[in-house]
């Protein structure tokens, strides 16, 4: 078995447990909220149309957007109420998925209860059943197969959509899919997809057994289905049941690209050596990551000085690197209690890059040269770049206008530049693929792009933990640009590919040898 597959499989039990717990809770809440709503709507025509409209509307919001929306909402709510509401992780994922599970449950619930034979309902009233007896003895037993079919649909949807919980920092099988996609580790993506599909199939099959058990009033089917479902839940949740919640787990954050996975793994390696238990929150959006740290939802992650300068502090000026770092450390400590532990020693700046041959053909060496040809060229950028202040700054400084601008995830952006479907791309200076693909980065004579030193940030709580800072201090100033590029390339290249954890071990081993 190769390393990537081994790592993916090793990650599987924990992720399956998290995935099952999240989906199970979401479906349960969907049932607890959905059935009373369906009951209410089935009896009242005035409620029915608006309710179905509302749950249908939720369904039209892409699941990813729905998940993303709850982060800022909970953040605002937490601030407004002064309660420690976690804005990242389980809670936002749970709320979004529960809402998502509502539609099939409510729709089938209404169909089941509203569609009952009116003669049977008249008979129930005629024999003197109370409202509650009618529901318990007649409506629920008769509607059960249709209600269960709705729950079954909701379960399958929820298990699928739960893979997206990764993006709001809740571990799920999506971790394998997203990190695999970013590092072009297709085996990892495949393991994630297969596991999610297997979960959905098993849940669907067991619920189908219960459904036919109810529909045919077959007790053995019901008991078998319920027993197997309970066993399945227990088995899936076993890894998380075994964990002792006594000692605190350090939560290490990572944004959604290879370098971040590698550095988060390196941090985990150091913390584990110092006796800490760690947990990962991967694939955080750039803006989400810092706010999550300030709010204490994650304890440590690596960010880049220029990103914080423009996005978090909303500064428009562009001082030299040491000045920026000093002011940043002071401002973040004062404002959020966040500690800047120090710079790792390399810069991952935004740069504009072209294929060497294409640049030579057009005579382009700097962004000034590029500005002249840009109206005939196409730009490939990552998903964030075009909406970032850095892009506005460089576009304004050089009056850049491209014939075409397209956003890709980082992996496909490199594909686009390599196969010639884009002329210019937004690159990261520490990316190993710059050298590997024979790209050149364009000079920035007007200093429009700020510096992007990689720095380790600690949450207010972690900032007070001296032992933790001591465990991470050896990383400070210890990762020069060529080491980082090499580590990145190990993960991003197509041949002899390594996993981020392997690259991190290589990186940390190099530091510890010195």
């Amino acid at each position, binding site marked *: 078995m190769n390393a990537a597959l081994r790592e993916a499989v090793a990650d599987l039990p924990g992720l399956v447990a998290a995935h099952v717990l999240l989906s199970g809770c979401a479906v349960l809440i969907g049932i607890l909220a959905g059935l009373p709503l369906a009951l209410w709507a089935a009896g009242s025509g005035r409620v029915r149309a608006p309710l179905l409209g509302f749950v249908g509307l939720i369904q039209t919001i892409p699941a990813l957007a729905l998940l993303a929306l709850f982060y800022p909402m909970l953040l605002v709510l937490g601030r407004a109420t002064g309660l420690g509401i976690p804005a990242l992780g389980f809670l936002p994922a749970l709320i979004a998925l529960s809402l998502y599970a509502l539609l099939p449950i409510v729709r089938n619930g209404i169909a089941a209860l509203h569609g009952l*034979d009116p*003669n049977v309902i008249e*008979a129930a009233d005629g*024999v*003197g*059943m109370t409202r509650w007896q009618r529901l318990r003895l*007649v409506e629920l037993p008769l509607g059960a197969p249709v209600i269960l079919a709705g729950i079954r649909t909701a379960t399958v949807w929820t298990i699928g959509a739960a893979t997206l919980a990764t993006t709001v920092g809740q571990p799920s099988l999506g971790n394998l899919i997203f990190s695999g996609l970013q590092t072009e580790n297709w085996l990892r993506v495949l393991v994630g997809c297969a596991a999610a599909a297997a979960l959905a199939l098993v849940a669907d099959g067991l619920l189908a057994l219960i459904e036919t058990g109810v529909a045919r009033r077959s007790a053995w089917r019901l008991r078998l289905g319920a027993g197997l479902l309970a066993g399945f839940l227990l088995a899936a949740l076993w890894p998380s049941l075994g964990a002792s919640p006594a000692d605190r787990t350090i939560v290490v954050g990572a944004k959604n690209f290879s370098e971040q996975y590698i550095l988060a793994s390196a941090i985990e390696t150091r913390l584990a050596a110092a006796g800490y238990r760690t947990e990962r929150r991967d694939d955080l959006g750039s803006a989400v990551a810092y706010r999550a740290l300030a709010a204490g939802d994650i304890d440590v992650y690596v960010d880049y000085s220029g990103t914080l300068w423009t996005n978090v502090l909303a500064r428009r000026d562009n001082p030299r690197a040491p000045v920026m770092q000093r002011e940043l450390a002071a401002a973040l400590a004062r404002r959020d209690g966040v500690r800047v532990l120090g710079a790792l020693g390399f810069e991952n700046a935004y740069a504009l890059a072209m294929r060497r041959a294409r640049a030579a053909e057009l005579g382009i060496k700097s962004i000034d040269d590029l500005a002249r040809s840009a109206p005939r060229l196409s730009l490939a950028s990552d998903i964030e770049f075009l909406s970032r202040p850095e892009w506005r700054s460089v576009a304004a400084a050089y009056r850049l206008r491209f014939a075409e601008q397209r956003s890709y995830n980082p992996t496909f952006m490199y594909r686009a530049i390599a196969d010639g479907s884009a002329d210019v791309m937004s690159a990261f200076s520490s990316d190993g693929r710059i050298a590997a693909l024979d790209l050149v980065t364009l000079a920035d004579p007007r200093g429009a792009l700020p510096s992007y030193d990689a720095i380790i940030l600690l949450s207010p709580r972690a900032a007070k933990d001296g032992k933790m800072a001591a465990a991470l201090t050896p990383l400070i100033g210890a990762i020069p640009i060529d080491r980082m590029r090499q580590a990145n390339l190990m993960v991003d290249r197509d041949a002899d590919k390594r996993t981020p954890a392997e690259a991190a071990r290589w990186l940390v081993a190099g530091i510890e040898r010195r």
Partner: protein
Amino acid sequence: MLSLLELDGVSKSHRGRRVLDDVTLSVAGGTFLAVVGPSGSGKTTLLKTINRLAAPEEGRVRLDGGDVAALPLSELRRRIGYVFQGIGLFPHMDVAENIWIVPRLAGAPETEREGRVAELLDLMALPRSFASRTPRALSGGQAQRVGFARALAARPSLMLMDEPFGALDPVTRDALGRAYRALHDELGLTTLMVTHDITEAMLLADRIIVLIEGRVRADAGPAALIAGHADEAVRELVAVPRRQAERLAALAQSG
């Protein structure tokens, strides 16, 4: 004679139309009363004001001297047997469970169930082996017999029947009608039956009320009614089955 059931000035409207218009009525215990009238005359609504499946806007309904509006709904309905055209057997329960539902709701001990169900099946001339059948396995006539057994299970004093034979074929209809009439006498029941079939009413009931546009336009025994009535509309209504009977008799004689 002491009246079991009394309606006093009962009125009800539906969408601005008077469905029941000041209906006053007194029914003695043991009576088999048929309520007839054209479609939409308010017959079913009249019946439903008694077990409160419909609430009157004005007037009072008294059962055994007590106002039905003052009784808890479920208790009232358990004292009244209810049979209707739609039958409405519970499809997820077997025949025994259907028959036993009212005693069960009233908290009767389960130990009495088997004996009572067997008794009621006998009463309705159904084989005892039917107890474990599902309603789906019954013919229309058998299903309505179970419907009657269910209505009788808690030994009600009053039976309300809304077109109880309406969904049955003519032969079954006649047989079940006569069987019920015999039961009515045997058990000393008081019965209110709504039907649009004047012949059926004439043949089964002791007393017939003609309801037209929510008003009681005639109240008489079958013989008196067929002999003639002052009200033109009532005469018209009764004339139809009478003419049919005469033509049938003529056919029989000429044959």
